[in-house]
């Protein structure tokens, strides 16, 4: 947030590019990219929409909010906040999206023998 005074012309340029990006993301949304490119389980539309949104957000942040001319501490704050949010999403996702994975490979489990307290070894595959 330094004393930099940006030129109005620059603001208008950034404004127009933001409007352009909005139009682009809306237009792209009407096209079903997955069907077009035939990729099976990649949410292409979402990725493209998010990439455009990140571009717009960084345009607003860098030029309208003067991050480009402010001290490194300010930028560090923004980077930290986004990184912490990423921690929340990725580690929560790590739980939700691996919940129905089978815990361990089958063969290793089957061979584990049961040590009865009285010393008799019961192979696990013996049908009770």
């Amino acid at each position, binding site marked *: 947030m330094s004393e930099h005074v940006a030129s109005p012309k620059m603001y208008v340029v950034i404004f127009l590019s933001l409007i352009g990006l909005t139009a682009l993301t809306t237009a792209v949304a009407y096209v079903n990219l997955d069907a077009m490119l035939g990729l099976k389980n990649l949410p292409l539309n979402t990725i493209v929409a998010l990439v455009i949104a990140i571009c717009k957000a960084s345009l607003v942040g860098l030029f309208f909010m003067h991050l480009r001319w402010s001290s490194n501490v300010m930028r560090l704050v923004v980077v930290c906040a986004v990184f912490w949010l990423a921690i929340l999403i990725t580690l929560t996702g790590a739980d939700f999206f691996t919940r129905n994975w089978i815990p*361990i490979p089958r063969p290793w489990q089957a061979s584990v023998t049961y040590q009865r307290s009285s010393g008799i070894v*019961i192979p696990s595959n013996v049908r*009770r």
Partner: protein
Amino acid sequence: MLFGLLLGFLPEASTMARPVDYLFWFCIAVLVFFTALIFATIFYFAIRYRRRSEDEIPPQIQGNLPLEIVWTVIPMGIVAVMFVWGTALFIRNARPPADATDVYVTGKQWMWKIQHSNGRREIDALHVPEGVPIKLIMTSEDVIHDFSVPAFRVKKDVLPDHYTSIWFTADRLGKYRFYCDQYCGMGHSQMRGYLYVMTPGAYEAWLHHGVQAQTMAQAGALLYNRMGCSTCHGTGKGPPFAGLYGKTVRLANGSTAAANDAYLRQMILYPGQKIVAGYRDIMPTFKGQLTEEEVLDLIAYIKSLGSKPGNTGE
């Protein structure tokens, strides 16, 4: 050791208990060692370097890099050992063996309703044979409970609308307590009972003793007709059930799903969520018309219609 001697050891009544106890006592040993180390060092330094005169200036020691590295690496090593040992035990215990006997546990606000596959039901009590791996398939009818058997060193939260499961092989006869460990309201502290480990023979006798209630599969068959499932699933309007259990099912939106207990439960209560390929979304939901036990009975019936051998889902 001190703890145990003072008040009697907690019995080790399952194959899992002994390995977990070894790890527990290793952790206790680390705790006692470091606590003694820190207390002794502090007492020694405090007495040895107590202030002699008011204006005494002790030597100012900057720090010592090698020492810092030593007491970073050693704790890392100890902690890594605990991590690997604990994770190995946890993963080994996370997957029930193929031949485990299924017992269905339903947690309801402040009681445990337990149901054996031959239809024998019991409240706040669980009879299990010795030496046989038992898999508890658990669900809750209202809030989150937690089925915990300290003597077996095992516990798992019981979630509403999800199946969670634990397994154990009791290997010592006797009567052990089980508790609800997750706070679930007013009667949380009464939601406990006894787990009886019996010899296989006594267990078989107990299982078939008492009123000849029909097995879960038979109860499921009655429900299957009463609820009118046969009108669609027997006549091709709905997907057939023969050999369904354990198979992977292709869904309308192209993805596949393994037909395990959770999938069958979801199809009975929320049919709209996953439509089988080639069939229309016309099945009404039975949520609210079936109790948890009846859902379990229906699933047992579908299982009894033949399933691929040796494959139990989560």
